[in-house]
């Protein structure tokens, strides 16, 4: 079996919490911090840490604005993040195909 796909998996995305954040952001133009928190049932600290990691990798862009006199933080995937996520999903599919028992 070729171990290359597994070795090439993006370690930034290949973590349960960050993979979930990337999945949600890949399906929608943007999500607020609160929406992400509610959807993933994460604590503020946990979510902030994961988002910082994704932001440092250049996968997630953060926008801060004010809505109804309240600060609003929204997250979205960057073009690089979208490409990296697609690559990650492609590799997972490749691994599934490789490990599927041959009939």
């Amino acid at each position, binding site marked *: 079996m070729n171990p290359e796909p*597994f070795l090439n998996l993006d370690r930034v995305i290949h973590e349960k919490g960050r*993979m979930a954040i990337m999945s*949600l952001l890949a399906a929608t133009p943007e*999500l607020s911090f609160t929406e992400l928190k509610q959807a993933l049932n994460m604590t503020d600290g946990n979510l902030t840490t994961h988002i910082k990691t994704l932001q440092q990798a250049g996968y997630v862009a953060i926008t801060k604005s004010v809505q109804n006199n309240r600060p609003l933080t929204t997250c979205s995937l960057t073009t690089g993040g979208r490409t990296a996520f697609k690559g990650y*999903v492609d590799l*997972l599919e490749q*691994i599934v195909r*490789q490990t*599927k028992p041959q009939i």
Partner: protein
Amino acid sequence: MNGDWAAQNLQTIRTLMERTALYRRALAPVMIAVGCIGLAAAILGWKLGIAQPDHFIGYWLAVAFIAAGAGFALVRRQAVQAGEPVWSPPARRVVQSALPALGAGLLLAVAVILEAPVKASQFPGLEDILAMKWLPQGWVILYGCAVHAAGFVLPRGMKLFGWAFVVAGSLLFLAGTPSLSPAGYGHALMGFFFGLLHQAYGVYLFLTEKKDPAA
């Protein structure tokens, strides 16, 4: 190497994406088109003097089907231009969530057509009130419920638009009988809610929606 974890990850990704996927078609042109049809239909209905209860109901049901057809045509054109399927999972969820309330509105209309003449023999004038005052108000509430339900898959603001219809329609039931004739009231109410409000919201969306829906 066991690939179960990879399959599980893929399944998790799919589930999360489906749960979050928003309906990305630009809704401004749809709202403006529906608003124009609604307003034009209200003016036409009033000018033509459509004042018989069954004619009023039939007329507005036909207008609703025309507006739905126009909305679908606009959405289809956008999807074709973007090279995406029209019947995408978010599109299915929009239709599935709006359908119960819209179906109830249709059934309510059928019930009024069938029942109102029977009751009118006992209570003169009730048929007009039922068909051209209470039914349109009921339609406003049910339409609001449909929009609110679909709002969970639509961009922010749509749920609020649905709420506005539900609250306004409910308040109208509490308000006293207007001095307008039932037909005049019915056409005015339909023109305001399904015409003017849609146009206003469409213009607001046009000014605020992101130009690139996939961005």
